[in-house]
Protein backbone atom coordinates (compact mmCIF):
# COMPACT_ATOMS: atom_id res chain seq x y z
CA UNK A 1 0.00 0.00 0.00
CA UNK A 2 1.30 3.39 -0.94
CA UNK A 3 0.90 6.39 1.38
CA UNK A 4 -1.69 7.87 -1.01
CA UNK A 5 -3.78 4.70 -0.88
CA UNK A 6 -3.49 4.71 2.89
CA UNK A 7 -4.83 8.27 3.05
CA UNK A 8 -7.61 7.39 0.61
CA UNK A 9 -8.75 4.45 2.74
CA UNK A 10 -8.38 6.59 5.86
CA UNK A 11 -10.89 9.07 4.41
CA UNK A 12 -13.26 6.27 3.40
CA UNK A 13 -12.96 4.85 6.91
CA UNK A 14 -13.50 8.21 8.61
CA UNK A 15 -16.63 8.94 6.58
CA UNK A 16 -18.03 5.50 7.44
CA UNK A 17 -16.97 5.97 11.07
CA UNK A 18 -18.84 9.27 11.36
CA UNK A 19 -21.96 7.58 10.00
CA UNK A 20 -21.51 4.80 12.52
CA UNK A 21 -21.31 7.38 15.28
CA UNK A 22 -24.88 8.51 14.53
CA UNK A 23 -25.98 4.93 14.84
CA UNK A 24 -24.00 4.04 17.92
CA UNK A 25 -24.58 7.26 19.87
CA UNK A 26 -28.27 6.45 20.29
CA UNK A 27 -27.48 2.90 21.28
CA UNK A 28 -24.90 3.97 23.83
CA UNK A 29 -27.29 6.52 25.39
CA UNK A 30 -30.14 4.05 25.91
CA UNK A 31 -27.62 1.49 27.12
CA UNK A 32 -25.85 3.84 29.50
CA UNK A 33 -28.94 5.66 30.78
CA UNK A 34 -31.72 3.07 30.92
CA UNK A 35 -29.37 0.02 31.22
CA UNK A 36 -31.33 -1.28 28.25
CA UNK A 37 -29.89 -3.48 25.49
CA UNK A 38 -31.79 -2.53 22.37
CA UNK A 39 -30.90 -5.23 19.86
CA UNK A 40 -33.75 -3.97 17.67
CA UNK A 41 -31.57 -0.95 16.85
CA UNK A 42 -30.14 -2.74 13.79
CA UNK A 43 -33.62 -3.55 12.49
CA UNK A 44 -34.74 0.06 13.08
CA UNK A 45 -31.83 1.08 10.85
CA UNK A 46 -32.84 -1.50 8.23
CA UNK A 47 -36.47 -0.42 8.01
CA UNK A 48 -35.49 3.27 8.03
CA UNK A 49 -33.04 2.62 5.18
CA UNK A 50 -35.76 0.89 3.13
CA UNK A 51 -38.14 3.77 3.83
CA UNK A 52 -35.47 6.24 2.69
CA UNK A 53 -35.03 4.39 -0.61
CA UNK A 54 -38.81 4.25 -1.16
CA UNK A 55 -39.73 7.82 -0.21
CA UNK A 56 -36.54 9.50 -1.37
CA UNK A 57 -35.78 10.26 -4.98
CA UNK A 58 -33.68 12.48 -7.20
CA UNK A 59 -33.05 16.13 -6.31
CA UNK A 60 -34.87 17.65 -3.35
CA UNK A 61 -36.78 14.44 -2.70
CA UNK A 62 -33.53 13.13 -1.23
CA UNK A 63 -34.18 15.37 1.79
CA UNK A 64 -37.68 13.93 1.98
CA UNK A 65 -36.20 10.42 2.09
CA UNK A 66 -33.79 11.29 4.92
CA UNK A 67 -36.61 12.97 6.86
CA UNK A 68 -38.89 9.97 6.39
CA UNK A 69 -36.10 7.68 7.59
CA UNK A 70 -35.61 9.79 10.73
CA UNK A 71 -39.36 9.77 11.42
CA UNK A 72 -39.48 5.98 10.93
CA UNK A 73 -36.59 5.54 13.34
CA UNK A 74 -38.32 7.72 15.92
CA UNK A 75 -41.61 5.82 15.73
CA UNK A 76 -40.08 2.33 15.79
CA UNK A 77 -37.71 3.14 18.64
CA UNK A 78 -40.53 4.61 20.74
CA UNK A 79 -42.65 1.52 20.04
CA UNK A 80 -39.83 -0.71 21.31
CA UNK A 81 -39.59 1.42 24.44
CA UNK A 82 -43.37 1.39 24.92
CA UNK A 83 -43.33 -2.42 24.78
CA UNK A 84 -40.57 -2.58 27.37
CA UNK A 85 -42.18 0.14 29.51
CA UNK A 86 -45.42 -1.83 29.71
CA UNK A 87 -43.61 -4.16 32.10
CA UNK A 88 -40.64 -2.02 33.03
CA UNK A 89 -40.53 -3.32 36.59
CA UNK A 90 -39.49 -6.73 35.30
CA UNK A 91 -37.92 -5.86 31.96
CA UNK A 92 -35.94 -2.86 33.17
CA UNK A 93 -34.10 -5.03 35.68
CA UNK A 94 -33.49 -8.18 33.66
CA UNK A 95 -31.03 -8.05 30.82
CA UNK A 96 -32.03 -11.46 29.52
CA UNK A 97 -35.65 -10.42 29.13
CA UNK A 98 -34.53 -7.29 27.28
CA UNK A 99 -32.50 -9.46 24.93
CA UNK A 100 -35.51 -11.68 24.28
CA UNK A 101 -37.84 -8.75 23.73
CA UNK A 102 -35.59 -6.73 21.46
CA UNK A 103 -34.31 -9.73 19.51
CA UNK A 104 -37.93 -10.69 18.91
CA UNK A 105 -38.68 -7.14 17.78
CA UNK A 106 -35.64 -7.31 15.48
CA UNK A 107 -36.97 -10.49 13.85
CA UNK A 108 -40.45 -9.03 13.42
CA UNK A 109 -39.14 -5.81 11.84
CA UNK A 110 -36.71 -7.67 9.58
CA UNK A 111 -39.46 -10.05 8.50
CA UNK A 112 -41.69 -7.07 7.73
CA UNK A 113 -38.95 -5.48 5.61
CA UNK A 114 -38.33 -8.79 3.82
CA UNK A 115 -41.96 -9.24 2.86
CA UNK A 116 -42.71 -5.59 2.10
CA UNK A 117 -39.65 -4.93 -0.07
CA UNK A 118 -39.33 -8.50 -1.35
CA UNK A 119 -35.97 -8.96 0.32
CA UNK A 120 -34.18 -7.21 -2.55
CA UNK A 121 -31.36 -4.71 -2.00
CA UNK A 122 -32.30 -1.13 -2.90
CA UNK A 123 -30.37 2.08 -3.07
CA UNK A 124 -30.99 5.81 -3.19
CA UNK A 125 -29.29 8.09 -5.69
CA UNK A 126 -27.46 11.04 -4.21
CA UNK A 127 -28.66 14.49 -5.35
CA UNK A 128 -26.98 15.38 -8.66
CA UNK A 129 -24.99 18.23 -7.08
CA UNK A 130 -23.25 15.67 -4.85
CA UNK A 131 -23.06 12.84 -7.33
CA UNK A 132 -19.60 13.47 -8.75
CA UNK A 133 -16.21 12.36 -7.60
CA UNK A 134 -12.76 13.80 -7.24
CA UNK A 135 -9.65 12.20 -8.64
CA UNK A 136 -7.49 11.40 -5.65
CA UNK A 137 -4.48 9.13 -5.31
CA UNK A 138 -5.30 7.41 -8.58
CA UNK A 139 -8.84 6.63 -7.41
CA UNK A 140 -12.10 8.51 -7.45
CA UNK A 141 -13.26 9.80 -4.08
CA UNK A 142 -17.05 10.29 -4.15
CA UNK A 143 -18.16 13.82 -3.33
CA UNK A 144 -21.15 12.37 -1.53
CA UNK A 145 -18.88 10.81 1.09
CA UNK A 146 -17.54 14.27 1.93
CA UNK A 147 -21.11 15.56 2.27
CA UNK A 148 -21.90 12.58 4.48
CA UNK A 149 -18.93 13.39 6.70
CA UNK A 150 -20.01 17.02 6.97
CA UNK A 151 -23.64 16.18 7.74
CA UNK A 152 -22.65 13.60 10.35
CA UNK A 153 -20.28 16.09 11.96
CA UNK A 154 -23.08 18.67 12.16
CA UNK A 155 -25.38 16.15 13.83
CA UNK A 156 -22.57 15.11 16.17
CA UNK A 157 -22.02 18.77 17.12
CA UNK A 158 -25.73 19.23 17.79
CA UNK A 159 -25.69 16.13 19.93
CA UNK A 160 -22.70 17.43 21.88
CA UNK A 161 -24.53 20.73 22.43
CA UNK A 162 -27.65 18.89 23.55
CA UNK A 163 -25.66 16.74 25.94
CA UNK A 164 -23.36 19.40 27.42
CA UNK A 165 -25.27 22.68 27.17
CA UNK A 166 -28.95 21.95 27.78
CA UNK A 167 -30.86 20.89 30.88
CA UNK A 168 -32.02 17.79 29.00
CA UNK A 169 -28.40 16.82 28.53
CA UNK A 170 -27.68 17.48 32.19
CA UNK A 171 -30.51 15.12 33.15
CA UNK A 172 -29.17 12.46 30.80
CA UNK A 173 -25.64 12.76 32.15
CA UNK A 174 -26.92 12.64 35.72
CA UNK A 175 -28.99 9.55 34.86
CA UNK A 176 -26.03 7.74 33.32
CA UNK A 177 -24.09 8.34 36.53
CA UNK A 178 -26.82 7.45 39.03
CA UNK A 179 -30.38 7.02 37.88
CA UNK A 180 -31.72 6.08 41.33
CA UNK A 181 -30.47 9.37 42.73
CA UNK A 182 -32.00 11.20 39.78
CA UNK A 183 -35.35 9.52 40.40
CA UNK A 184 -35.10 10.35 44.10
CA UNK A 185 -34.72 14.03 43.15
CA UNK A 186 -38.17 13.88 41.59
CA UNK A 187 -37.23 13.53 37.92
CA UNK A 188 -39.56 11.28 35.93
CA UNK A 189 -37.02 8.80 34.62
CA UNK A 190 -39.66 7.09 32.44
CA UNK A 191 -40.23 10.30 30.48
CA UNK A 192 -36.50 10.85 30.21
CA UNK A 193 -36.02 7.28 28.93
CA UNK A 194 -38.77 7.80 26.35
CA UNK A 195 -37.08 10.97 25.13
CA UNK A 196 -33.72 9.23 24.85
CA UNK A 197 -35.25 6.31 22.95
CA UNK A 198 -36.90 8.78 20.57
CA UNK A 199 -33.56 10.54 20.11
CA UNK A 200 -31.78 7.25 19.49
CA UNK A 201 -34.40 6.32 16.87
CA UNK A 202 -34.00 9.67 15.09
CA UNK A 203 -30.22 9.23 15.03
CA UNK A 204 -30.49 5.68 13.64
CA UNK A 205 -32.97 6.94 11.02
CA UNK A 206 -30.65 9.80 10.04
CA UNK A 207 -27.75 7.34 9.73
CA UNK A 208 -29.90 5.09 7.52
CA UNK A 209 -31.08 7.99 5.35
CA UNK A 210 -27.73 9.73 4.98
CA UNK A 211 -26.03 6.38 4.44
CA UNK A 212 -28.55 5.18 1.84
CA UNK A 213 -26.59 6.42 -1.22
CA UNK A 214 -23.48 4.60 0.06
CA UNK A 215 -24.78 1.55 1.93
CA UNK A 216 -28.24 1.23 0.42
CA UNK A 217 -30.77 -0.99 2.12
CA UNK A 218 -30.37 -4.75 2.10
CA UNK A 219 -31.42 -7.71 4.20
CA UNK A 220 -28.68 -8.74 6.62
CA UNK A 221 -27.96 -5.14 7.56
CA UNK A 222 -30.01 -5.60 10.71
CA UNK A 223 -27.18 -7.78 12.05
CA UNK A 224 -24.18 -6.19 10.28
CA UNK A 225 -25.13 -2.77 11.58
CA UNK A 226 -26.03 -4.08 15.01
CA UNK A 227 -22.63 -5.70 15.45
CA UNK A 228 -20.83 -2.49 14.49
CA UNK A 229 -22.94 -0.59 17.03
CA UNK A 230 -22.22 -3.20 19.72
CA UNK A 231 -18.50 -3.13 19.06
CA UNK A 232 -18.49 0.66 19.26
CA UNK A 233 -20.48 0.77 22.50
CA UNK A 234 -18.28 -1.82 24.17
CA UNK A 235 -15.07 -0.20 22.94
CA UNK A 236 -16.12 3.33 23.84
CA UNK A 237 -17.61 2.52 27.22
CA UNK A 238 -21.40 2.41 27.68
CA UNK A 239 -23.09 5.78 28.00
CA UNK A 240 -20.08 7.80 26.90
CA UNK A 241 -20.64 9.91 23.78
CA UNK A 242 -16.95 10.84 23.60
CA UNK A 243 -16.08 7.16 23.82
CA UNK A 244 -18.59 6.30 21.12
CA UNK A 245 -17.12 9.01 18.90
CA UNK A 246 -13.54 7.76 19.27
CA UNK A 247 -14.59 4.13 18.88
CA UNK A 248 -16.72 4.89 15.81
CA UNK A 249 -13.79 6.45 14.00
CA UNK A 250 -11.50 3.58 15.02
CA UNK A 251 -14.03 0.97 13.88
CA UNK A 252 -14.72 2.81 10.60
CA UNK A 253 -11.01 3.02 9.77
CA UNK A 254 -10.34 -0.59 10.84
CA UNK A 255 -13.22 -1.70 8.63
CA UNK A 256 -11.97 0.28 5.61
CA UNK A 257 -8.36 -0.95 5.94
CA UNK A 258 -9.53 -4.51 6.55
CA UNK A 259 -11.75 -4.54 3.46
CA UNK A 260 -9.15 -2.86 1.27
CA UNK A 261 -6.08 -4.84 2.20
CA UNK A 262 -7.32 -8.16 3.60
CA UNK A 263 -10.61 -8.69 1.75
CA UNK A 264 -11.19 -12.25 2.99
CA UNK A 265 -10.24 -11.55 6.56
CA UNK A 266 -11.65 -8.07 7.08
CA UNK A 267 -13.21 -9.21 10.34
CA UNK A 268 -9.81 -9.98 11.82
CA UNK A 269 -8.94 -6.28 11.94
CA UNK A 270 -12.16 -5.65 13.86
CA UNK A 271 -11.64 -8.64 16.17
CA UNK A 272 -8.05 -7.55 16.72
CA UNK A 273 -9.20 -4.05 17.63
CA UNK A 274 -11.73 -5.40 20.15
CA UNK A 275 -9.20 -7.78 21.70
CA UNK A 276 -6.48 -5.17 22.04
CA UNK A 277 -8.72 -2.47 23.49
CA UNK A 278 -10.59 -4.72 25.90
CA UNK A 279 -7.42 -6.46 27.08
CA UNK A 280 -6.07 -3.01 27.85
CA UNK A 281 -9.24 -1.45 29.25
CA UNK A 282 -12.05 -3.95 30.00
CA UNK A 283 -14.54 -1.15 30.70
CA UNK A 284 -13.92 0.49 27.31
CA UNK A 285 -11.91 3.54 26.28
CA UNK A 286 -13.98 6.09 28.17
CA UNK A 287 -15.85 3.70 30.42
CA UNK A 288 -15.82 3.76 34.17
CA UNK A 289 -15.54 0.52 36.13
CA UNK A 290 -18.76 -1.46 36.06
CA UNK A 291 -20.83 -0.93 39.18
Amino acid at each position, binding site marked *: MTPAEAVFQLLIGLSFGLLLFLLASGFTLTFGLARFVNLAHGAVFLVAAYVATSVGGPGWRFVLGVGAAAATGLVLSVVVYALAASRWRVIGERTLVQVLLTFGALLVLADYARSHWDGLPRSLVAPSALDGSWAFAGSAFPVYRLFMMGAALVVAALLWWLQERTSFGALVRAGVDDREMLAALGVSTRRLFAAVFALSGVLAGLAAGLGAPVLGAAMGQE*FDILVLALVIVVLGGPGSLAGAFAASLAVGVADAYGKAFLPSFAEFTMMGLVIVVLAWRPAGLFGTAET
Partner: protein
Amino acid sequence: MSVRRAMTVPRVRRVAVVLGLVALVAVPHVGDAFQVTLVVRGLVWATLAASVWFLLRICDLPSLGHAAFFGIGAYTAGLAVTRWQVDNVFAALGLAIVVTAVLSLPIAVIAGRLRNMQFILVTLAFAEMTRSLATRWAELGGTDGLVGVIRPGAWPFGLDLSDATTYYYFALAVLLAGVALLVVVVRSPFGAVLRGIRDSEQRVAALGYNPLVYRVAAFVLSAVVAGSAGVVHTYLNRFANPTDVAPLVSARALLIVVLGGAAIAGPVTVAILLTIIEDALSSHTDRWLGVLGALYVVVALANGAWNPAAWRRALVRRRGGATPATHAADDAPPPPARRAATLERTT
Protein backbone atom coordinates in the same frame (compact mmCIF):
# COMPACT_ATOMS: atom_id res chain seq x y z
CA MET B 1 -46.08 -32.34 55.62
CA SER B 2 -42.99 -30.49 54.70
CA VAL B 3 -40.96 -33.57 55.48
CA ARG B 4 -43.07 -35.67 53.16
CA ARG B 5 -42.70 -33.06 50.43
CA ALA B 6 -38.99 -33.01 50.79
CA MET B 7 -39.00 -36.72 50.12
CA THR B 8 -41.51 -36.79 47.29
CA VAL B 9 -40.24 -33.95 45.09
CA PRO B 10 -36.86 -35.48 44.22
CA ARG B 11 -38.61 -38.80 43.62
CA VAL B 12 -41.08 -37.17 41.21
CA ARG B 13 -38.18 -35.55 39.44
CA ARG B 14 -36.26 -38.79 39.19
CA VAL B 15 -39.30 -40.56 37.77
CA ALA B 16 -39.74 -37.73 35.22
CA VAL B 17 -36.11 -38.00 34.12
CA VAL B 18 -36.39 -41.79 33.70
CA LEU B 19 -39.64 -41.43 31.76
CA GLY B 20 -38.04 -38.77 29.54
CA LEU B 21 -35.08 -41.01 28.82
CA VAL B 22 -37.34 -43.95 28.02
CA ALA B 23 -39.32 -41.71 25.64
CA LEU B 24 -36.09 -40.55 23.93
CA VAL B 25 -34.83 -44.11 23.53
CA ALA B 26 -38.22 -45.19 22.14
CA VAL B 27 -38.51 -42.47 19.47
CA PRO B 28 -36.96 -44.46 16.54
CA HIS B 29 -39.31 -47.36 17.28
CA VAL B 30 -42.51 -45.31 17.12
CA GLY B 31 -41.74 -42.49 14.65
CA ASP B 32 -41.23 -42.53 10.89
CA ALA B 33 -37.96 -41.46 9.25
CA PHE B 34 -39.01 -37.80 9.03
CA GLN B 35 -40.03 -37.62 12.67
CA VAL B 36 -36.83 -39.33 13.80
CA THR B 37 -34.75 -36.78 11.88
CA LEU B 38 -36.78 -33.97 13.40
CA VAL B 39 -36.06 -35.24 16.91
CA VAL B 40 -32.34 -35.56 16.04
CA ARG B 41 -32.49 -31.86 15.21
CA GLY B 42 -34.05 -31.35 18.64
CA LEU B 43 -31.22 -33.34 20.25
CA VAL B 44 -28.65 -31.09 18.55
CA TRP B 45 -30.42 -28.03 19.94
CA ALA B 46 -30.61 -29.66 23.35
CA THR B 47 -26.83 -30.21 23.35
CA LEU B 48 -26.22 -26.59 22.36
CA ALA B 49 -28.73 -25.37 24.96
CA ALA B 50 -27.01 -27.46 27.65
CA SER B 51 -23.73 -25.65 26.93
CA VAL B 52 -25.43 -22.25 27.18
CA TRP B 53 -27.27 -23.40 30.32
CA PHE B 54 -23.96 -24.21 31.99
CA LEU B 55 -22.56 -20.71 31.40
CA LEU B 56 -25.75 -18.91 32.35
CA ARG B 57 -26.87 -20.88 35.38
CA ILE B 58 -23.53 -21.88 36.89
CA CYS B 59 -21.41 -18.86 35.98
CA ASP B 60 -24.12 -16.20 35.49
CA LEU B 61 -22.64 -15.43 32.06
CA PRO B 62 -25.36 -14.94 29.42
CA SER B 63 -23.80 -15.87 26.08
CA LEU B 64 -25.41 -14.58 22.92
CA GLY B 65 -22.57 -15.92 20.80
CA HIS B 66 -22.57 -19.69 21.08
CA ALA B 67 -23.34 -19.93 17.37
CA ALA B 68 -19.64 -19.23 16.90
CA PHE B 69 -18.59 -22.43 18.68
CA PHE B 70 -21.47 -24.41 17.21
CA GLY B 71 -20.32 -23.22 13.79
CA ILE B 72 -16.65 -23.92 14.46
CA GLY B 73 -17.58 -27.49 15.41
CA ALA B 74 -19.84 -27.79 12.36
CA TYR B 75 -17.20 -26.53 9.92
CA THR B 76 -14.44 -28.64 11.47
CA ALA B 77 -16.62 -31.74 11.08
CA GLY B 78 -17.26 -30.79 7.45
CA LEU B 79 -13.61 -30.06 6.69
CA ALA B 80 -12.57 -33.31 8.38
CA VAL B 81 -14.35 -35.46 5.79
CA THR B 82 -14.20 -33.19 2.72
CA ARG B 83 -10.60 -31.94 2.96
CA TRP B 84 -8.69 -33.88 5.57
CA GLN B 85 -9.84 -37.42 4.72
CA VAL B 86 -10.80 -38.27 8.28
CA ASP B 87 -13.06 -41.31 8.10
CA ASN B 88 -13.94 -41.80 11.73
CA VAL B 89 -16.70 -39.98 13.52
CA PHE B 90 -14.93 -40.11 16.88
CA ALA B 91 -11.71 -38.74 15.40
CA ALA B 92 -13.76 -35.95 13.77
CA LEU B 93 -15.48 -35.26 17.08
CA GLY B 94 -12.16 -35.16 18.90
CA LEU B 95 -10.70 -32.87 16.25
CA ALA B 96 -13.68 -30.54 16.50
CA ILE B 97 -13.35 -30.45 20.29
CA VAL B 98 -9.68 -29.50 20.07
CA VAL B 99 -10.26 -26.84 17.39
CA THR B 100 -13.21 -25.34 19.29
CA ALA B 101 -11.22 -25.27 22.53
CA VAL B 102 -8.25 -23.54 20.89
CA LEU B 103 -10.32 -20.96 18.99
CA SER B 104 -12.60 -20.20 21.94
CA LEU B 105 -9.69 -19.49 24.26
CA PRO B 106 -8.93 -15.90 23.13
CA ILE B 107 -12.64 -15.05 23.16
CA ALA B 108 -12.91 -16.59 26.63
CA VAL B 109 -10.03 -14.49 27.92
CA ILE B 110 -11.63 -11.27 26.65
CA ALA B 111 -15.23 -12.10 27.54
CA GLY B 112 -14.30 -13.65 30.90
CA ARG B 113 -13.38 -10.20 32.19
CA LEU B 114 -16.81 -8.79 31.34
CA ARG B 115 -20.17 -9.22 33.02
CA ASN B 116 -23.85 -8.88 32.18
CA MET B 117 -24.65 -6.74 29.18
CA GLN B 118 -21.08 -6.26 28.07
CA PHE B 119 -20.65 -10.03 28.05
CA ILE B 120 -23.77 -10.38 25.91
CA LEU B 121 -22.61 -7.72 23.48
CA VAL B 122 -19.06 -9.03 23.12
CA THR B 123 -20.11 -12.66 22.61
CA LEU B 124 -22.66 -11.57 20.00
CA ALA B 125 -20.09 -9.39 18.25
CA PHE B 126 -17.51 -12.20 18.11
CA ALA B 127 -20.10 -14.64 16.76
CA GLU B 128 -21.10 -12.19 14.03
CA MET B 129 -17.48 -11.68 13.05
CA THR B 130 -17.06 -15.46 12.86
CA ARG B 131 -20.09 -15.70 10.61
CA SER B 132 -18.85 -12.99 8.33
CA LEU B 133 -15.50 -14.74 8.15
CA ALA B 134 -17.26 -17.98 7.17
CA THR B 135 -19.10 -16.25 4.33
CA ARG B 136 -15.99 -14.58 2.94
CA TRP B 137 -13.29 -17.17 3.33
CA ALA B 138 -13.16 -19.07 0.03
CA GLU B 139 -11.62 -22.14 1.70
CA LEU B 140 -14.82 -22.50 3.71
CA GLY B 141 -17.04 -22.36 0.64
CA GLY B 142 -18.39 -18.83 1.09
CA THR B 143 -22.16 -18.50 1.34
CA ASP B 144 -22.65 -22.04 -0.02
CA GLY B 145 -20.67 -23.49 2.85
CA LEU B 146 -19.21 -26.98 2.77
CA VAL B 147 -21.22 -29.33 0.61
CA GLY B 148 -20.83 -33.02 -0.17
CA VAL B 149 -20.19 -34.00 3.44
CA ILE B 150 -20.67 -37.72 4.06
CA ARG B 151 -21.17 -39.38 7.43
CA PRO B 152 -17.87 -41.04 8.39
CA GLY B 153 -17.41 -44.54 9.77
CA ALA B 154 -17.63 -45.38 13.44
CA TRP B 155 -14.64 -47.64 14.10
CA PRO B 156 -14.22 -49.51 16.53
CA PHE B 157 -17.99 -49.96 16.68
CA GLY B 158 -19.58 -51.66 13.72
CA LEU B 159 -22.14 -48.91 13.24
CA ASP B 160 -23.51 -47.55 10.00
CA LEU B 161 -24.25 -43.88 10.71
CA SER B 162 -26.02 -43.38 7.38
CA ASP B 163 -28.88 -45.36 8.90
CA ALA B 164 -31.39 -42.92 10.44
CA THR B 165 -31.96 -44.95 13.61
CA THR B 166 -28.24 -45.46 14.24
CA TYR B 167 -27.61 -41.76 13.72
CA TYR B 168 -30.41 -40.97 16.15
CA TYR B 169 -28.69 -42.99 18.87
CA PHE B 170 -25.36 -41.37 18.03
CA ALA B 171 -26.93 -37.91 18.50
CA LEU B 172 -28.57 -39.04 21.73
CA ALA B 173 -25.23 -40.40 22.99
CA VAL B 174 -23.51 -37.06 22.28
CA LEU B 175 -26.28 -35.20 24.13
CA LEU B 176 -26.16 -37.51 27.14
CA ALA B 177 -22.35 -37.44 27.24
CA GLY B 178 -22.41 -33.61 27.11
CA VAL B 179 -25.05 -33.33 29.83
CA ALA B 180 -23.27 -35.92 32.00
CA LEU B 181 -19.98 -34.05 31.61
CA LEU B 182 -21.57 -30.75 32.61
CA VAL B 183 -23.41 -32.25 35.58
CA VAL B 184 -20.24 -33.96 36.82
CA VAL B 185 -18.36 -30.67 36.50
CA VAL B 186 -21.08 -28.76 38.34
CA ARG B 187 -20.95 -31.24 41.23
CA SER B 188 -17.14 -31.37 41.35
CA PRO B 189 -14.97 -29.11 43.54
CA PHE B 190 -14.28 -27.09 40.36
CA GLY B 191 -18.02 -26.55 39.95
CA ALA B 192 -18.30 -25.53 43.59
CA VAL B 193 -15.73 -22.80 42.99
CA LEU B 194 -17.62 -21.67 39.88
CA ARG B 195 -20.86 -21.39 41.86
CA GLY B 196 -18.97 -19.60 44.59
CA ILE B 197 -17.68 -17.08 42.05
CA ARG B 198 -21.20 -16.59 40.72
CA ASP B 199 -22.62 -15.93 44.17
CA SER B 200 -19.80 -13.88 45.63
CA GLU B 201 -16.78 -13.29 43.48
CA GLN B 202 -14.94 -11.24 46.09
CA ARG B 203 -15.14 -13.88 48.79
CA VAL B 204 -13.88 -16.62 46.49
CA ALA B 205 -11.08 -14.37 45.29
CA ALA B 206 -10.19 -13.66 48.92
CA LEU B 207 -9.83 -17.41 49.45
CA GLY B 208 -7.05 -17.39 46.87
CA TYR B 209 -8.85 -18.55 43.73
CA ASN B 210 -8.41 -16.56 40.54
CA PRO B 211 -11.97 -16.00 39.22
CA LEU B 212 -10.78 -15.18 35.70
CA VAL B 213 -9.02 -18.54 35.31
CA TYR B 214 -12.13 -20.40 36.45
CA ARG B 215 -14.42 -18.40 34.18
CA VAL B 216 -12.16 -18.94 31.17
CA ALA B 217 -12.06 -22.69 31.86
CA ALA B 218 -15.85 -22.80 32.20
CA PHE B 219 -16.24 -20.82 28.97
CA VAL B 220 -13.97 -23.17 27.02
CA LEU B 221 -15.77 -26.22 28.45
CA SER B 222 -19.10 -24.77 27.38
CA ALA B 223 -17.71 -23.94 23.92
CA VAL B 224 -16.50 -27.52 23.51
CA VAL B 225 -19.96 -28.94 24.24
CA ALA B 226 -21.44 -26.44 21.75
CA GLY B 227 -18.84 -27.54 19.18
CA SER B 228 -19.86 -31.19 19.63
CA ALA B 229 -23.45 -30.19 18.88
CA GLY B 230 -22.15 -28.60 15.68
CA VAL B 231 -20.50 -31.88 14.65
CA VAL B 232 -23.76 -33.81 15.01
CA HIS B 233 -25.54 -31.01 13.12
CA THR B 234 -23.18 -31.18 10.13
CA TYR B 235 -23.32 -34.96 9.74
CA LEU B 236 -27.09 -34.80 10.11
CA ASN B 237 -27.51 -32.28 7.27
CA ARG B 238 -24.49 -33.46 5.28
CA PHE B 239 -23.40 -29.82 4.87
CA ALA B 240 -22.20 -26.89 6.95
CA ASN B 241 -23.05 -23.35 5.95
CA PRO B 242 -22.95 -19.81 7.37
CA THR B 243 -26.53 -20.02 8.68
CA ASP B 244 -25.13 -22.43 11.31
CA VAL B 245 -23.17 -19.47 12.69
CA ALA B 246 -26.07 -17.00 12.45
CA PRO B 247 -27.04 -14.89 15.49
CA LEU B 248 -30.43 -16.61 15.28
CA VAL B 249 -28.72 -19.80 16.49
CA SER B 250 -27.24 -18.06 19.54
CA ALA B 251 -30.48 -16.28 20.35
CA ARG B 252 -32.50 -19.47 20.05
CA ALA B 253 -30.14 -21.32 22.37
CA LEU B 254 -30.37 -18.54 24.95
CA LEU B 255 -34.16 -18.40 24.59
CA ILE B 256 -34.38 -22.15 25.22
CA VAL B 257 -32.32 -21.77 28.40
CA VAL B 258 -34.36 -18.82 29.66
CA LEU B 259 -37.58 -20.75 29.05
CA GLY B 260 -36.18 -23.94 30.52
CA GLY B 261 -35.57 -22.75 34.06
CA ALA B 262 -32.83 -23.68 36.49
CA ALA B 263 -32.41 -27.45 36.06
CA ILE B 264 -30.57 -28.83 33.04
CA ALA B 265 -33.53 -31.08 32.16
CA GLY B 266 -35.52 -27.89 31.40
CA PRO B 267 -33.52 -26.63 28.41
CA VAL B 268 -33.19 -30.17 27.04
CA THR B 269 -36.97 -30.65 27.09
CA VAL B 270 -37.72 -27.17 25.75
CA ALA B 271 -35.18 -27.62 22.92
CA ILE B 272 -36.86 -30.77 21.64
CA LEU B 273 -40.39 -29.40 21.99
CA LEU B 274 -39.53 -26.05 20.40
CA THR B 275 -37.94 -27.80 17.42
CA ILE B 276 -41.13 -29.77 16.83
CA ILE B 277 -43.33 -26.67 17.24
CA GLU B 278 -41.13 -24.64 14.89
CA ASP B 279 -41.31 -27.33 12.26
CA ALA B 280 -45.09 -27.28 12.43
CA LEU B 281 -45.00 -23.48 12.21
CA SER B 282 -42.67 -23.32 9.21
CA SER B 283 -44.78 -25.78 7.25
CA HIS B 284 -47.80 -23.49 7.65
CA THR B 285 -46.30 -20.08 6.88
CA ASP B 286 -43.22 -18.80 5.09
CA ARG B 287 -43.16 -15.82 7.45
CA TRP B 288 -42.31 -18.03 10.40
CA LEU B 289 -39.29 -15.88 11.33
CA GLY B 290 -41.67 -13.02 12.04
CA VAL B 291 -43.96 -15.34 13.96
CA LEU B 292 -40.97 -16.60 15.94
CA GLY B 293 -39.97 -13.00 16.70
CA ALA B 294 -43.48 -12.23 17.89
CA LEU B 295 -43.28 -15.33 20.08
CA TYR B 296 -40.05 -14.03 21.66
CA VAL B 297 -41.71 -10.66 22.32
CA VAL B 298 -44.74 -12.32 23.92
CA VAL B 299 -42.55 -14.55 26.09
CA ALA B 300 -40.51 -11.52 27.19
CA LEU B 301 -43.63 -9.53 28.05
CA ALA B 302 -45.13 -12.48 29.88
CA ASN B 303 -41.90 -13.00 31.75
CA GLY B 304 -43.29 -11.57 34.96
CA ALA B 305 -45.80 -14.40 34.88
CA TRP B 306 -43.32 -17.03 33.64
CA ASN B 307 -41.52 -17.78 36.87
CA PRO B 308 -41.51 -21.50 37.78
CA ALA B 309 -39.54 -20.81 40.97
CA ALA B 310 -42.23 -18.39 42.19
CA TRP B 311 -44.96 -20.95 41.36
CA ARG B 312 -43.17 -23.57 43.36
CA ARG B 313 -42.84 -21.18 46.31
CA ALA B 314 -46.52 -20.29 46.02
CA LEU B 315 -47.44 -23.97 45.94
CA VAL B 316 -45.37 -24.69 49.01
CA ARG B 317 -46.98 -21.72 50.80
CA ARG B 318 -50.47 -22.90 50.00
CA ARG B 319 -49.67 -26.36 51.30
CA GLY B 320 -48.35 -24.78 54.46
CA GLY B 321 -44.82 -25.92 53.70
CA ALA B 322 -41.84 -24.52 55.52
CA THR B 323 -40.46 -21.94 53.13
CA PRO B 324 -38.52 -19.08 54.67
CA ALA B 325 -41.33 -16.52 54.78
CA THR B 326 -39.03 -13.56 54.18
CA HIS B 327 -38.08 -14.69 50.69
CA ALA B 328 -41.30 -16.39 49.72
CA ALA B 329 -43.26 -13.15 49.67
CA ASP B 330 -41.46 -11.20 46.99
CA ASP B 331 -40.62 -11.89 43.38
CA ALA B 332 -37.01 -10.83 43.71
CA PRO B 333 -34.40 -13.43 42.80
CA PRO B 334 -33.49 -15.48 45.86
CA PRO B 335 -30.32 -14.49 47.68
CA PRO B 336 -27.11 -16.26 46.71
CA ALA B 337 -27.20 -18.91 49.40
CA ARG B 338 -30.66 -20.00 48.39
CA ARG B 339 -29.83 -19.94 44.71
CA ALA B 340 -26.94 -22.29 45.28
CA ALA B 341 -29.20 -24.57 47.30
CA THR B 342 -31.85 -24.54 44.55
CA LEU B 343 -29.27 -25.51 42.04
CA GLU B 344 -27.93 -28.29 44.18
CA ARG B 345 -31.40 -29.76 44.31
CA THR B 346 -32.17 -29.39 40.67
CA THR B 347 -29.04 -30.64 38.98
